[in-house]
């Protein structure tokens, strides 16, 4: 029994000191990405690491969480947000490297319904006003603090149906959670980005797509954090994201060029 204690301490010390394999790579970038952009940014990052022989690691979360983490001092080199308000917050804290902030690409909101519903009665949903129908009981939308939630509510407000629909709205932590709710049929409709739809194409259908006239323009922004020790690689990565060849890749996935 007596020998157990020191061994336990040794093991504990050993564990705490194990560095993560990829952390050891010098000059690697850590990029905070909004969940709705994970796959495309991963593809862009893979290409970038290939061409520049520097590793890029992604940490995905809702834009608001990314901002919170950045404000708390998380060691991101680059942060990508799904709107400019969130980026404004990071900028207000004086965290952004001068001249590194850039708009990358745009998106559109889609009102989606479960496919099972399409076969029954959802043929009735072709416009936002159809959401007022008593058949539609629950509408999933991302939380207010998440860009998708902000845009969605702004869209409803513009059509003057936010108030009457308020009791039907179900808040989800972010846009992919909305997608999961709609594809499982737990709700009757939901607001996601057009680019989110393909990953659940067999389960959801688009009932309505927003255009610039009825919603605030939706765009993603990228910026390097001034405390990054790899600022030049960070701005090279942002340049890569906005390069013509990469923008083409984004467009193929349904994003919209600004």
């Amino acid at each position, binding site marked *: *029994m*007596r020998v157990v204690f020191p061994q*336990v*301490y040794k*093991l*504990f010390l050993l*564990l*705490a*000191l*194990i560095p*993560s*394999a*990829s*952390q050891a790579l010098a000059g690697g970038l*850590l990029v*905070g990405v909004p*969940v709705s952009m*994970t*796959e495309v940014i991963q593809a862009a990052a893979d290409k970038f690491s290939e061409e520049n022989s520097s590793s890029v*690691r*992604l*940490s*995905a*979360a809702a834009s608001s*969480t990314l901002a*919170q*983490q950045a404000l*708390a*001092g*998380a*060691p*991101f080199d680059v942060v990508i947000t799904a709107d400019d308000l969130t980026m404004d917050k990071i900028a207000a804290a004086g965290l952004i490297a001068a001249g590194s902030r850039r708009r990358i690409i745009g998106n559109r909101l889609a009102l989606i319904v479960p496919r099972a519903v399409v076969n029954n009665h959802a043929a009735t949903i072709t416009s936002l006003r159809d959401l007022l129908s008593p058949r539609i009981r629950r509408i999933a939308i991302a939380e207010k603090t998440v860009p998708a939630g902000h845009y969605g509510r702004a869209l409803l407000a513009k059509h003057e149906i936010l108030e009457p629909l308020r009791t039907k709205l179900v808040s989800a932590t*972010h846009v*992919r*959670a909305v*997608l*999961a709710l709609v*594809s499982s049929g737990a709700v009757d409709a939901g607001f996601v980005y057009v680019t989110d739809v393909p*990953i*659940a194409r067999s389960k959801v259908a688009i009932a309505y797509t927003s255009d610039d006239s009825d919603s605030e323009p939706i765009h993603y922004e990228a910026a390097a954090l001034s405390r990054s020790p790899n600022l030049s690689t960070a701005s090279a990565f942002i340049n890569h994201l906005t390069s013509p060849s990469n923008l083409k890749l984004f467009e193929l996935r349904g994003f919209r060029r600004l």
Partner: protein
Amino acid sequence: MSVVMLSVIVSLKVALLATLVVVILATPLAWYLTRRNFTGKFLVEGILLLPLTLPPVAIGLMLLMLMSPRGILGRFWLAVSDKPLLLSWQAAAVAAMVISFPLYLKAAMESFASVPQRLESMAETMGLSPWRCWWKVTLPLAARGLGAGALLAAARALGEFGATTMVAGSIPGETETLAVGIYNSVMNGDEYTAWSLATVSLILAIIATIASRSLSHYSAIRAV
């Protein structure tokens, strides 16, 4: 290495470190709280058990502040390892520690309470120092209960999600644990990975629960 294996390794690493620290810190504390009375004990116990009832996300928010390079934990870690604590696997371990701490503390307190004080005083009258008595009598008698508690804490640490995503993010192969991996793959429509991760979690949870149950069952039999 596959995504599943990477998440399993991260999860086990996180849960193991968390459980070790919890056992080291909470065992003496649990003994002290069971055997000593002092004013404000009720309050101290209440505060220590708080993570059991607080939403993990709220704990994550508090930890985010503590782990920031300006926060006390973040500053300490930066001084020791020269690396930021946020978005590291150690940050995930701290989150898991805080969440699983009260689970182990409760189990350890019950376990110490079940040790007959009669045996301890007998040992002391036979000339054992209080410290030796603790090692030779109290700890061995409580060991099974403590082990059961540690397994329970480890199982909880394995599943921690809310506080973990907040402070550790979700970097595949580094901070993406099983629970965080399941969430991310569901969100990305990757059901195959989600179900593979969920199956592994299920197996680990079953092992931990059975082991924990059989340990506490044994100690119940021995107590009779």
